[in-house]
């Protein structure tokens, strides 16, 4: 079996196991106030990190490119309380324009 097949099957197996494990751990684990606080903070830090990593990195390098133009449009739209599709499509348009003219 090629390493590609091993990687596909192994990754898929672990990916599902981790997801299922999360759903199957006892609910009482979430009742403690400390766990509640951590649980509330997790999406904030992960989403923010995902924004940063997806905006200014290529693999492990930090780069400033056309995506920042898209992000600027998104932030501007957020300040004006634009609906979600406007934010996402506006960012894509801003980024595409910067890509072609940048």
């Amino acid at each position, binding site marked *: 079996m090629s390493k*590609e097949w091993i990687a596909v099957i192994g990754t898929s197996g672990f*990916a599902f196991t981790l997801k299922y494990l999360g759903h*199957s751990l006892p609910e009482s684990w979430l009742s403690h106030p400390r766990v509640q606080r951590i649980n509330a903070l997790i999406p904030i830090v*992960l989403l923010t990190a*995902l924004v940063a990593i997806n905006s200014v990195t290529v693999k492990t390098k930090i780069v400033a490119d*056309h*995506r920042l133009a*898209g992000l600027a449009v998104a932030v501007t739209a957020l300040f004006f309380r634009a609906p*979600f599709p406007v934010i996402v*499509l506006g960012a894509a348009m801003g980024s595409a324009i910067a890509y072609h003219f940048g």
Partner: protein
Amino acid sequence: MSVKRDSFSLSFAVGAYGTAFGAASVTAHFSVLQSCLLSLLTFSGASQFAVIGVVGAGGGALSAIATASLLGTRNGLYGLRMAPILKVKGWKRIVAAHVTIDESTAIATAQSNQSDQRVGFWHTGFGVFIFWNIFTLLGAIGAKAIGNPSAWGLDAAVPAAFIALVWPRLVDRKTRAIAAAAIALSLALAPFTPAGIPIITCALLAIIIGWRA
């Protein structure tokens, strides 16, 4: 109902990015079938990109699996968060687990009541699954012809979706400070750690701050 509209928009934006995965996967010498199976069975973008990134760069299967699985622990945390909201058992739990990803959890946890949280989770989970797999296939088949997702701005649509989701949660000085710390930490680590590690490490930030506060 705005949660359904949000779910659809995010699903399409994220799913369309599957073209990039399909194309990158084929470029990294995975077959079209293997690329599609990764999207169908692993179904976690970051983990999938990690696999093809490691193998494509000449890494072995084990390091590819390890890197992808480290990224997948994030989904375990999401599952822990979603389980008490969804309250599902048996085959429904298997399906719920499979569609527990960044986007479904993010949309769900951004809602204020349990009904909207469930609607957001299922709609986004299935929505991303459908679009992600369709676009993976298209990207893999047309790897050379489809061209560059950057030219369509799709690489900015994804962080834009994430920032739109986190924005309403940054309600006070404390959460903004934590978000700023997450940006600083992830970018400080990015040049020195394998892709994915900076994001995981930020989970530790939440644990440390939540533990003490």
